[in-house]
């Protein structure tokens, strides 16, 4: 099946980004396609290339980047939400792209399933 995933909260503060990532990984392992992950609200903060978590903690941003590279997952950051929160091309991590809300609606239309993770 073709999956879309929505992430509404930033990394570390809430578990939603972790849950979304582990869900996406499991879906791929099951042979499904994760077509797009859309980052909305504070979820856009998952896309900053500047995070430096402690050595013994998971690196949430890099995990997303790696997933995108290995499985061609389209990581889309909402432009309006990103501008409000200070996410721009200059601090955008690899594997993410900034685009409009239409990309979320398109995921809802084209995907067989859309799963939302938030607070």
């Amino acid at each position: 099946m073709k999956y879309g995933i929505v992430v509404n909260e930033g990394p570390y503060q809430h578990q939603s980004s972790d849950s979304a990532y582990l869900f996406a990984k499991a879906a791929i392992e099951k042979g499904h396609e994760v077509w797009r992950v859309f980052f909305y609200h504070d979820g856009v903060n998952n896309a900053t290339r500047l995070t430096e978590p402690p050595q013994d903690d998971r690196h949430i941003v890099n995990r997303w980047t790696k997933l995108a590279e290995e499985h061609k997952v389209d990581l889309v950051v909402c432009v309006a939400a990103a501008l409000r929160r200070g996410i721009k091309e200059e601090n955008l991590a690899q594997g993410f792209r900034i685009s409009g809300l239409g990309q979320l609606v398109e995921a809802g239309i084209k995907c067989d399933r859309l799963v939302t993770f938030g607070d």
Partner: protein
Amino acid sequence: MLHIINQSPLNSSTLDTCLNTAAGGDILFIEDAVYAVTKGNAAEAKLKAAMGKFKLHVLLPDLEARGLGDRLMDGVTGVDYGGFVDLTSNNKTCQSWL
């Protein structure tokens, strides 16, 4: 439909609203919502009552993270992330009760 709940039952009205509103189907408890399906939690009775209408599931990695892997109440099915994926593919739609 698959209903996904992620809030603790004693801190938020989410579980009550889902149980009162949703027409039935599967409920999956993830994140802090896993406390709802542990023995001795004040939500236990209302979940037992809801078992006729809903099929209850819990995400085991979240339950174990919280040190409650051995407290799962009877009648609730434990799943891993793969089982979570299966629940979403076996239901036509899913709704996260945020």
